[in-house]
């Protein structure tokens, strides 16, 4: 019975409970369904705050751990092993925050098959949180792969005109990487005799380096596609553009972070020597992604596509920070994961709001919107500035810390990577301001745009929590860094030990 009230169990499985409850509501009662889903996700958010209250930020180790035997027969050693530490807690909170916001954003946007939508959405939340709390590779893989199914259905049923193509591409692309990771998981499970992540981390440095590199690459196949790292990003524009708004928010806000989190939780600590060896390469691909994503964003006419490609660029920063393999870089990387979730999530919400009104996302169809929709314009301006890293807003803190970390990183070995990444910051300003200008400035010359209604109360409510956090992190990031710092320091210390052992 104790387990049922355990904060992590509650946070993870409460949405599942909500989706089961939805099964018993008649599909015609759309509003009831929406309210049940919203309340479920809000309660989940409250549970996640309770989890935060119990979390001891000074403790670098796994907390609120549950480690129960699950499949311990026939030579298997699979446990139901979950827990939270400084690396994962912010991402769990991000997930539980973005889910109710997304559900609220669908209030009028999703009108067909509301019941199915909400069921899949809540299932997706359980899957995503499961990914962040799993400390057993088998359990992790179950959650990881499971998230594909509801997201695939969300894109495929409620998406845009090319939704089926986008959904299948999303599924196959991500599964291609995952199954290679599955083989590596099996190899580890057989050779090391355990699927427990902490145990594998403890014994990781003992694996010969060339095998570590193979395992690193197999795991990286799954994570790099998810992030997505250049050149494995081609599923992302399709999936993002075709997905319904709420799907895009979750996809960009949380699911991409599952990839970067994977690198942080598994690749770097489990195969430390390989991580150190491959860090310059990862940094190279990250920087190419930053510049490529920015350049392609600039070329887009579709606002949603622009935002989608900007994710490639922003996630490049996260990867660069993580593979700096020093405390600043990794802390910046984690914070930037959260920042990207907030800013890009907010951007997708804003794009969704205008799409709902005009049913187009072509930038040429707009112009001068500020006059028609001042509140909308002001909110978009703040979010745009946050996304391009204006000091005082959240994006700046993350990117600056990452650049600082990667500039002095021994693992990457050259300050040039940080130098080129800094160009990406400038490019981000270019394409984002270009977008803002196209939408909001200039004459309000299109008849359809003159009659647009400004945001209603519900839409403003969806934005408020994101804006608060954008300012909070921008002005006073200390509590956020404090949550992750001990865990990051522990990770970096373990890396250094592994490196020195390998040298002798």
């Amino acid at each position, binding site marked *: 019975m104790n387990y049922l009230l355990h904060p992590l169990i509650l946070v993870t499985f409460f949405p599942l409970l909500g989706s089961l409850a939805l099964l018993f509501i008649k599909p015609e009662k759309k509003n009831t369904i929406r309210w049940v889903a919203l309340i479920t996700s809000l309660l989940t958010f409250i549970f996640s705050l309770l989890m935060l209250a119990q979390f001891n930020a000074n403790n670098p180790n796994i907390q609120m751990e549950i480690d129960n035997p*699950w*499949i*311990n*027969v*026939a*030579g*298997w050693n699979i446990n139901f092993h979950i827990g939270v530490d400084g690396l994962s807690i912010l991402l769990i909170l991000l997930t539980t925050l973005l889910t109710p916001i997304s559900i609220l954003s669908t209030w009028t946007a999703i009108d067909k*098959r509301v019941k*199915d939508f909400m069921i899949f959405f809540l299932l997706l939340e359980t899957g995503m949180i499961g990914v962040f709390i799993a400390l057993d590779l*088998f359990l992790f*893989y*179950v959650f990881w*792969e*499971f998230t*594909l*199914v509801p997201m*695939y*259905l969300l894109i*495929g*049923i409620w998406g845009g005109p090319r*939704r*089926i193509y986008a*959904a*299948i591409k999303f*599924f*196959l692309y991500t*599964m*291609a990487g995952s*199954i*290679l990771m*599955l*083989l590596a998981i*099996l*190899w580890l*499970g*057989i050779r090391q005799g355990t699927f427990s992540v902490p145990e594998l981390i403890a014994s990781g440095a003992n694996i010969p380096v060339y095998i570590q590199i193979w395992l690193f690459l197999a795991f990286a196949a799954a994570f790099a596609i998810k992030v997505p790292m250049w050149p494995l990003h081609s599923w992302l524009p399709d999936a993002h553009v075709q997905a319904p708004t709420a799907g895009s928010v979750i996809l960009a806000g949380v699911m991409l972070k599952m990839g970067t989190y994977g690198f942080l939780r598994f690749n770097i600590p489990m195969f430390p020597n390989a991580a150190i060896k491959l860090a310059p390469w990862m940094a190279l691909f990250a920087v190419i992604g930053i510049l490529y994503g920015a350049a392609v964003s600039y070329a887009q006419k579709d606002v949603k596509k622009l935002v989608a490609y900007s994710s490639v660029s922003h996630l490049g920063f996260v990867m660069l920070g993580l593979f700096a393999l020093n405390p600043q870089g990794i802390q910046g990387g984690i914070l930037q994961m959260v920042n990207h979730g907030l800013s890009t999530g907010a951007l997708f919400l804003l794009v969704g709001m205008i799409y709902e009104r005009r049913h187009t996302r072509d930038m040429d169809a707009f112009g001068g919107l500020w006059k028609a929709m001042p509140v909308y314009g002001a909110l978009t301006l703040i979010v745009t500035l946050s996304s391009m890293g204006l000091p005082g807003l959240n994006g700046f803190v993350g990117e600056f810390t990452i650049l600082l970390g990667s500039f002095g990183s021994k693992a990457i070995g050259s300050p040039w990577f940080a130098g080129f990444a800094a160009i990406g910051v400038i490019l981000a300003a270019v394409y984002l301001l270009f977008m803002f200008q196209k939408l909001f400035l200039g004459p309000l010359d299109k008849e359809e745009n003159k009659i647009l209604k400004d945001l209603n109360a519900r839409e403003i409510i969806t934005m408020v929590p994101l804006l608060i956090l954008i300012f909070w992190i921008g002005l006073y990031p200390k509590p956020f860094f404090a949550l992750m710092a001990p865990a990051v320091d522990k990770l970096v210390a373990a890396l250094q030990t592994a490196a020195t052992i390998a040298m002798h």
Partner: protein
Amino acid sequence: MTTTDLLSVFPLLILILWACLVLLLDVFLKRERLTTILTAIGLVVTLGFSISQNNLNLTGFNNMVVVDNFAVYLNIIFLGSGLLAISLAHDYLKRMGINRGEFYVLLMFSISGMMLMAIAADLIVFFLALELLSIPLYVLAAFARPRVESEEAGMKYFLLGAFSGGFVVYGIALVFGATATTNLSGIAARIAEHQADIPLLTIGAALILVGFSFKVAVVPFQMWTPDVYHGAPSAVTAFMAIGAKAAGFAALMRIFVAALPTLSEQITPIIWVLAALTMIVGNIVAVAQSNIKRMLAYSSIAHAGYILMALVSYGQSSVASVSVSAALFYLLSYAVTNFGAWAVVIAVEKAEGKGLALDDYAGIGRKYPALAAAMAIFMLSFTGVPPTLGFVGKFYLFRAVIDGGYIGLAVIGVLTSLISAFYYLRVVVIMYMRDGEPEVRSEPWLNLTTAFTAIATIVLSIFSAPILQWASQAILSTF
């Protein structure tokens, strides 16, 4: 005949006698409903006796049969499949106008052949079992006569079945020539004493492998499968896809793992190539299918490849038991998923072979959400996406392969399951993302089967430990 002899074949005897009795009753009473119920009772009673044989480890008739946990496990799968087949068939046969009592009798005879296969420990008994299980299936495949497809299916199955039977007999003859015995324990002893003619034995073993490869539909011996699966009545196909396959693998595992591990040097490369080919061809050709029965036929070929993959490392004594239990677990997970999928096919199928195109599934997601959800679960399970039985099955299977050191084959296995994701997901796409006005047959037993298998697919994947435990205790007796 001693008591042990009698005990070892007791469930089999019960089933065969019961089948004869039901045949007579059916002829004189002409009441199909009664026949259905009696058959179900017979299967349940036999199932009870089979379960009671667990852990007994009997041998009978001078080592010609052996009842170990391996056999018990498989017998339970066979009898369970029989019960599920009845629940699918009884309404289906009526609907298609082919409700004849022989169906149930033939089903019981076929199951008894499968049970004999599971306990066989002598090559002659294997052949006997092969024929006993196949001949009723030939008739069942043609059961929807005078529909041409069904007659063609029966004929084709019979011809190729007889052909493959020839391979088995010839292989047995050569093995006998090489070792002077047909008894598996005798063969193992001869090899151990270095009194066997190894080249001749290898050729014989390879021929036996070929013969059973026909039965389990391994590429390049799969040609009959799509036509037979397509032409046979769906309830028969559902049963055949599990029963015949499981029986074929039972024979392969018993003969190769228990009696001929010493030949692994020669046989393993053959199995490697067969498994790889089967997974590649089965999955790629399935992509091109627009008829659900043909698609499931190719999918069953592909799954035979996955199971065969477990046998690649059969010669390594440390891995062999893991391989066998992985294959057994996979058979069970495939059986559950497969029956579920066929139950949905039967629900959508109309008379005259209508309602079998993939396009006929359009709009099911909206109109029949429960049925669509079940089908989606089965498709995801076939693909191997967690949390489904298919995923757990593949997980254990790939473990056996990686444990044996065949990483290349494992990579082929996962890449082909990626291909399979494409055509399994297409069913989901059509059900949920296309509009249509499907008509679906709703009948209590059919719905019950669908619901039961769908729930089992999810729940057993989360609580797979007891089944895995059971499968891992289902070890072959060694000779």
